[in-house]
């Protein structure tokens, strides 16, 4: 099998796809985002509990490919218990790591896993889907 493919579907993505973090519906959350890609039908709801300018708890539920599901799971894990300002920064870091070569920009291992999507331009949107929506929400 193709090495670039193995790189893309490596442990981080497979682990999060098979066992997503906080995968649950919390319809009563203070904020509910919908990350939807009409071209492929991937759709996730992200349930955020915001209190005192911080994300107290965050969950997600929905349907998507391994990449979009794992990326949403990584996002939920990374943003829980973060202040809004820190969450903004993390979104920027993730999206930067996704779109740019990471040399000189030490990034988290779970973020870097998605950088392999650069080899599959058709799949970049899958990796950024929930993060783009989260950025729009945080930047208000």
């Amino acid at each position, binding site marked *: *099998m193709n090495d670039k493919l193995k790189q893309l*579907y490596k442990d981080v993505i497979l682990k999060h796809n098979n066992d997503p973090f906080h995968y649950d519906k919390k319809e009563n959350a203070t904020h509910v985002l919908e990350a939807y890609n009409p071209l492929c*039908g*991937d759709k996730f709801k992200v349930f955020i509990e915001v209190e005192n300018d911080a994300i107290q708890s965050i969950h997600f539920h929905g349907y998507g490919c391994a*990449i979009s599901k794992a990326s949403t799971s990584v996002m939920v894990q990374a943003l829980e218990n973060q202040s809004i300002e820190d969450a903004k920064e993390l979104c920027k870091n993730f999206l930067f790591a996704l779109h740019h070569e990471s040399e000189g920009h030490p990034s988290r291992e779970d973020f870097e896993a998605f950088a392999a999507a650069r080899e599959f331009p058709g799949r970049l949107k899958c990796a950024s889907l929930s993060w783009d929506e989260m950025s729009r929400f945080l930047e208000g």
Partner: protein
Amino acid sequence: MQLKYKIMVDPLIIRQDFPIFRHHPNLAYLDNAATMQKPETVIQGVANFYRKENANIHRGVYQLAIEATEKYERVRHRAASLIGAPSTKNIVYTSGTTAGINLVVQSFLEKRLSKDDEVLITAMEHHANLIPWQMVCKKTGAQLVVIPMNERGELDMDAFKERLSGRTKMVAAVHISNTLGSINPVEDIVDLAHKRGVPVLIDGAQSVAHYPIDVKEMDCDFFVFSGHKVFGPTGVGILYGKEEHLSSMAPVFFGGDMIREVSFEDTIFAEHPQKFEAGTTNIAGIIGLGYAMMFLQQYNKKQIVKYLDELGGYARQELKSVKSLKIVGKAKRKSPIISFHFKNIHPHDVATFLGAENIAIRAGHHCTQPLMDIFDIPGTSRASFTFYNTFEEVDRMVKVLKEMKKFLS
């Protein structure tokens, strides 16, 4: 002109006519339901028109313009002969299937439709043969009624009979489902609708390239297809309409080349089909479509169908050997369009694994979202074949699917 002697359907020889396979020798192109690759003659035909023959049509009196007009108009003859239309007057050039359907909706149906009337479509329509009818129903207060299908993906003809009524003003049905591959009994649909005096549009986007079409025999009122799904260029297509309909329909686009006489007070339109072809059309594209239909007419459609039945049957059989793969759409009469899905693997992941090995398939809802809802799946992977595809390509696809399944579980 019909060729008396047809060429044998041999995919290995036919492939040599397609430059794309020289540029991508390892490409297994299994996305023919989305768009087909183009033979050299089509590419040359379009290029040569711009290179040596370019002039606007119907206007100039100089030689180049006369020749361009003749060449452009000759394509109407070829289209008529390809689908068995009685005359070139029945052949309207469009920008594709979608444009053809929208023209019929706006020009033919809208004025006949009022509150509480009904338009019948099938559960397996492409969005192109759904949304235009849905919009005109919303506008007029009419109802869009859907003919259901069984779990194999076959239309429920009893339900169709029940739903046909005095309120039905139009039936629109897809000939071959672009998602399930089901071949619908269009002759029966037309027959039943006509018994009630209801006109029928058939969406032939997926059928013209492979199956013999005779609109006179089918007796449909309208038949639409796209150039790029019959080996031709994108952005061109054909609307066939019965004489009595086309002559009574008013144009919806106005402009140059569709008139007989114009004053500041009024305009007298040209006759059909010209009155539907306002402005400068995609002349080179239409000429390319002519070459595509010429390419297609070299082959005996019975032979094409026979080969594709064998190839599609083989693909379905081999796909069954992939663990936990489910084929969606098991109609008795089906084309070589095969949708499948895995319970825990998303179609886009499937397409990525195949794509990494140079195997092009489609993943998603295939512009048939309501159909996906019926099957309660968000999407499928779809392999669609034509007669330049080979059994070896099926084997390659199945091999990768097995490796992927092993890797992801």
